[in-house]
C-alpha cells in the first residue's frame, strides 16, 4: 500500500526544543556542511599542525595545555604568518620559516586561572599587542628574524618589549659651561677639570664666518657682565614613533663677566638611555630665562651620551609637547586590547575596570593623560573589546557598550545591560550575521550599527541548542573560545561544560544552514585562524595528560581521524570521529493520530561502498525500536561506482558524487512521533530524506486518569 510521504529536501540545523521544525535535527554531532549540496558531510577530523608523522609532537612535546593562540598575518599570500601562543607560563613565537620548527621563548607570562580569560592579542600594523590582566602588556614585532639557528637571546630581546612608557626619561645631566677667560691669548679656563665643556663661538664677524649660526646665550650685556639661563629636557622616541613624556629639566647658568665678552656657548647634556625599543632621543630647550621648551634636535640612536646644544635660538623648531600629550602607560595591567580608528584601546585592568584608554592615533605606545573614557559604572568591568565597522564594541560584566567617533572625540553609548559577554576570546564576526559571542545564558549576535539611522540589536541565536549551552561551566566561561572559518563558513565555539575547567564541547553555527551542530572529541584549548581559513587550535591538555600524548598545535581538516598517538615510538593517526545524526521528532501534522512508518528514504550523495547504519525511534523513547539497518552509499539501481582499493587504475574513471535515494524499510508499529538516526564513522553525505507512512486514523487513547 502506497503511503503518504513527508519530504525534507535539505536537512536543517539542530533544534533541541520540542515540538520541532520538521527540517530540524535532534542531534547533529561531528558533521560539517557539504559545500556542493549544503547537506551534511561527516568528513571532519583534526590533525597535527606539522603533518609529518616522523616528527611526532615536536617541538611541542613537553608543552602542557596551550592557553592562548594568535596567528598574525603580515603579507598577502600567507607569507610572514606568525604564530604566537602561551603555554606553561611562557609566551612563544613558533618560528617556521624555511621548514624550521623552532619555539622561540619570548618570556614568562602568568598562567591564567581556570576562571580567567587567557591572553588577548591585537595586531596593529606589523606589531602585536598582548594583554592578560596580570603581566605588563607586551608589544611584539615578529619580523624580520634571522635563520632559526641564529635566533639568539639578543634577537629574542629585540622581538618583544613592554608596551608604552613605564615613566618619564631620567633627568638629563647638565655639564657645566666653562667660559673663556679673555686674556691676550684665549685659552680654556684652567679651573675646570671634569663634567664641564667649553663649546664657544665668537660673535664677531671678524673672527668666523656666520658668527650667529652657532651657540646660544648673550655674548655680552648692555652693561657688560651678563648671565645666561637655559633648561633642557629630553624625550624618548620608540620604534612605533611614540614619544615619551618629557623628562625633568637640566638647568644651565653661565655668566660672562665684563672683560670676557664676545662668545656664545653650546652647553652639553648627558642624555639618558631609553628603554628597549628606543630608536631616538629628542632634545628640547627653553629660550634664555623662559620656561617654554622648543625642539632642538633628534639624536637618532640610543647609544650616544653627550649632546652639545649648539643650535642657535633662531634655529629652534616646534614647541615641545605638553605634559598631557604623553604619559606613562595608564593601564599597566590591561586585560584586553583592540585597535580602533588607528588608536590602541586598552581597558584599565583590575584597578580601573570601567575605564578604557586609547593611544594617540598611529602611536600605539603614546597615551595622552586625558585620553580615556570612563564608562557608566553599572556595566561592571570591561571583559572584551572588539572593532566592528565604525564602532568599538565594549563587552562588560553586565552589558555591552559601544564607542563611536574618532580621536580624540570618542564617545561611549550603552547598547544593553541585559546581555553580557565574559569570554573575550569567543567574540568573532560572521559575514552577513554580525558579531557572535558567548553570554552566560547562551550565544548572542550583535548586529546593526549606529550610522545612518541603523540601530544595534542584540539577538539570541543559541536558542535551538540551549540544552547544550546550559551545560556551560559558568565560572570557567571566560575560557571559551570562538572563531569563524571562511573555509567551512562556520563559527566554531568551544566551551567548558559539565564542570570541566577547559573547553570540552564544540558548538558550530553553519552560515549556509543557518543552524547549529555540535562537535565532540576535539581537544580545543584555544583557537586561531590560518591564512587559508583553516581553524588551528592549541591542545587543551598537552603533556599534562602524560608523556607522549597529544601536545601542541592542531588543525581542523577533512582528515578522517581525531589526532593521533605514539605507539611503540611510531606516530599513529587516531580513529575517525563517530558522527551522529538524528532527525526531528515528526508528528506528521497531528500527534494524536497514530502513524505506521514504513520507509525512510535517505537522500544521500554517494560516497562509495561505505555503510549507512540507521536506527529509528518512537514517541520520545530512548531505546531504538529497530537498528542496524545497514546500507551502502552506492546507487541502488545502477552499477556501483568504483571505490578506492578496487578501482582499476587507467580503466575506471574518476567519479562524481550522485544524489541517490536509499530506501530503507523500517518496521515500526503505531506511533505519535517518529525519528530516525544515523551513526557512522564512514564518509557519509546526507542531503535530505523522505519518510513514507500510513495512517488508518486511529487516535491515541485518552490520557491516564489520576
Amino acid at each position, binding site marked *: 500500500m502506497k503511503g503518504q510521504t513527508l519530504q525534507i529536501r535539505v536537512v536543517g540545523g539542530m533544534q533541541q526544543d520540542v515540538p520541532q521544525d520538521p527540517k530540524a535535527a535532534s542531534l547533529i554531532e561531528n558533521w560539517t556542511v557539504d559545500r*556542493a549540496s549544503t547537506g551534511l558531510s561527516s*568528513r571532519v*577530523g583534526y*590533525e597535527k*599542525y*606539522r*603533518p609529518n608523522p616522523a616528527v611526532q609532537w615536536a617541538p611541542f612535546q613537553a608543552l602542557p595545555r596551550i592557553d592562548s593562540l594568535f596567528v598574525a598575518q603580515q603579507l598577502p*599570500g*600567507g607569507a610572514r604568518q606568525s604564530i604566537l601562543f602561551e603555554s606553561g607560563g611562557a609566551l612563544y613565537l613558533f618560528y617556521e620559516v624555511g621548514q624550521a620548527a623552532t619555539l622561540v621563548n619570548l618570556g614568562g607570562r602568568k598562567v591564567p586561572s581556570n576562571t580567567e580569560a587567557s591572553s588577548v592579542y591585537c595586531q596593529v600594523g606589523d606589531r602585536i599587542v598582548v594583554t592578560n590582566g596580570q603581566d605588563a602588556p607586551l608589544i611584539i614585532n615578529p619580523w624580520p628574524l634571522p635563520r632559526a639557528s641564529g635566533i639568539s637571546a639578543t634577537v629574542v630581546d629585540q622581538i618583544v618589549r613592554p608596551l608604552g612608557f613605564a615613566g618619564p626619561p631620567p633627568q638629563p645631566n647638565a655639564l657645566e659651561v666653562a667660559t673663556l677667560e679673555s686674556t691676550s691669548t684665549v685659552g680654556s679656563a684652567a679651573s675646570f677639570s671634569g663634567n664641564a665643556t667649553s663649546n664657544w663661538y665668537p660673535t664677531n664677524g671678524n673672527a668666523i664666518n656666520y658668527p650667529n649660526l652657532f651657540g646660544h646665550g648673550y655674548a655680552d650685556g648692555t652693561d657688560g657682565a651678563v648671565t645666561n639661563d637655559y633648561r633642557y629636557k629630553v624625550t624618548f622616541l620608540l620604534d612605533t614613533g611614540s614619544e615619551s613624556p618629557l623628562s625633568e629639566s637640566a638647568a644651565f647658568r653661565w655668566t660672562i663677566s665684563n672683560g670676557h665678552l664676545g662668545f656664545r656657548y653650546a652647553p652639553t647634556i648627558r642624555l639618558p638611555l631609553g628603554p628597549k625599543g628606543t630608536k631616538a632621543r629628542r632634545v628640547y630647550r627653553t629660550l634664555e630665562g623662559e620656561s617654554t621648551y622648543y625642539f632642538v634636535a633628534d639624536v637618532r640612536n640610543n647609544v650616544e651620551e653627550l649632546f652639545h646644544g649648539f643650535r642657535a635660538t633662531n634655529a629652534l623648531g616646534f614647541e615641545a609637547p605638553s605634559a598631557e600629550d604623553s604619559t606613562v602607560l595608564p593601564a599597566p595591567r590591561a586585560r584586553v586590547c583592540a585597535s580602533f580608528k588607528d588608536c590602541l584601546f586598552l581597558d584599565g585592568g583590575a584597578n580601573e575596570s570601567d575605564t578604557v584608554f586609547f593611544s594617540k592615533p598611529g602611536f600605539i605606545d603614546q597615551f595622552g593623560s586625558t585620553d580615556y573614557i570612563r564608562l557608566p559604572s553599572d556595566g561592571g568591568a570591561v571583559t572584551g573589546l572588539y572593532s566592528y565597522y565604525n564602532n568599538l564594541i565594549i563587552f562588560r560584566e553586565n552589558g555591552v557598550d559601544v564607542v563611536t567617533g574618532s580621536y580624540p572625540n570618542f564617545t561611549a553609548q550603552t547598547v544593553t545591560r541585559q546581555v553580557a559577554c565574559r569570554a573575550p576570546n569567543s567574540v568573532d564576526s560572521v559575514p552577513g550575521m554580525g558579531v557572535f559571542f558567548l553570554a552566560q545564558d547562551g550565544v548572542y549576535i550583535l548586529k546593526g550599527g549606529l550610522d545612518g539611522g541603523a540601530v544595534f540589536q542584540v539577538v539570541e541565536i543559541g536558542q535551538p541548542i540551549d540544552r547544550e549551552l546550559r551545560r556551560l561551566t559558568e565560572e570557567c566561561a571566560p575560557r571559551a573560545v570562538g572563531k569563524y572559518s571562511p573555509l567551512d563558513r562556520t563559527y566554531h565555539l568551544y566551551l567548558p561544560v559539565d564542570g570541566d575547567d577547559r573547553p570540552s564541547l564544540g558548538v558550530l553555527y553553519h552560515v549556509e544552514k543557518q543552524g547549529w551542530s555540535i562537535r565532540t572529541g576535539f581537544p580545543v584549548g584555544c583557537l586561531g585562524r590560518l*591564512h*587559508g581559513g*583553516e581553524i588551528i587550535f592549541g591542545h587543551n591538555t598537552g603533556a599534562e595528560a602524560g608523556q607522549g600524548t597529544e601536545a601542541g598545535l592542531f*588543525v581542523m*581538516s*577533512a*582528515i*578522517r*581521524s581525531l589526532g593521533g598517538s605514539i605507539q611503540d615510538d611510531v606516530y599513529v593517526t587516531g580513529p575517525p570521529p563517530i558522527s551522529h545524526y538524528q532527525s526531528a521528532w515528526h508528528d506528521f501534522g497531528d500527534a494524536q493520530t497514530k502513524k505506521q512508518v514504513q520507509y525512510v528514504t535517505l537522500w544521500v550523495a*554517494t*560516497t*562509495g*561502498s*561505505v555503510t549507512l547504519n540507521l536506527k529509528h525511534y518512537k514517541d520520545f523513547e530512548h531505546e531504538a525500536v529497530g537498528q542496524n539497518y545497514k546500507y551502502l552509499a552506492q546507487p541502488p539501481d545502477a552499477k556501483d*561506482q*568504483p*571505490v*578506492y*582499493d*578496487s*578501482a*582499476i*587504475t*587507467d*580503466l*575506471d574513471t*574518476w*567519479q*562524481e*558524487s550522485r544524489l541517490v535515494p536509499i530506501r530503507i524499510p523500517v518496521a515500526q508499529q503505531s506511533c505519535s512521533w517518529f525519528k530516525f538516526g544515523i551513526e557512522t564513522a*564512514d*564518509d557519509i553525505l546526507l542531503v535530505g530524506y523522505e519518510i513514507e507512512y500510513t495512517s488508518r486514523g486511529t487516535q491515541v487513547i485518552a490520557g491516564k486518569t489520576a
Partner: protein
Amino acid sequence: MKQWTKHDARSSQTVEADQFNEQHKSFRSQMTGLDRAQYPENCVVPGNLVGNAAHKVWVFAPWDTGVANALGEQTALRSAAADTRGDQWMAGTYINHTSGWVTVFETTLAPFKGGNLMVEWAGNSAIQQFFHWTTNARWAPPVRSHPNDKYMALRILVNGVVLTERLGPAKPIDHFIVSGAQQLPSGPVTLTCQMNPTGAGPDDAVVDDSGSENHLMQAHLFSNRVVAIGRWR
C-alpha cells in the same frame, strides 16, 4: 605553504574527482596529486592496475630487421657496396658526409601520459682513426704535427629538444651508452637519436689508392638498442 587534509582517501570510498581535486588544488604548487601516503593501505596493487597504467617501457633494436642487407648496421649515410672497399663496412664515408648531425633513428613514443621519461641508447661504433695527426691545419705551424682528433658525437632528442649529448666514442671500435631523463607533459613524444662523426682533416685520405678510389669509412654504428621508460601514475 603548509596544507592540511582536504580529502582523506579511504578504503571503500568513491574515487571522486571533486574530492581528489580539492586535495590536488591545495597542493598545486607542491606536487601532482595525492601522495601515495594518502591512499588507503594496499589501494594500488597489481590487481587494480591495467597495463601501462603507471609506466611503459619501449625497446627498439634499430636496423635489426626490415632493411635488406642491413645486418644490424645503420642505414642513414650508408655508402653503396660498389663504392666501398671489400674489407670495410658499407658505412658513412667522407664522401657522403662532411659534417653536422645526422638522424640515425627516430620514433614516436605513444601513449605517453606525462611524467618522467628515461631514454638509454647503447650500441657499438666504428670510426676512422688512422689520420689523427696533421700538419696542414690552418692553425698548425708548418714543422710540427698536431692532433686531429676523431670521434663520433652522439645525442638524444625528445620532441626536437636535446635531452643529452656526449662527445662520443673516440676509438676505432668502441661501445657506448648514452642516457638521459626528463619530466615531460603528456602526449606523443618524438624520440630522435643522432650522430655527428668528425669531418675529414686537411691531410686525411678519403679514398683509397687502389685506382678505383673506393670510399674510405668515416663512421659506422652497429648492434644498437634504444630503451625508453615512461613513468607516471
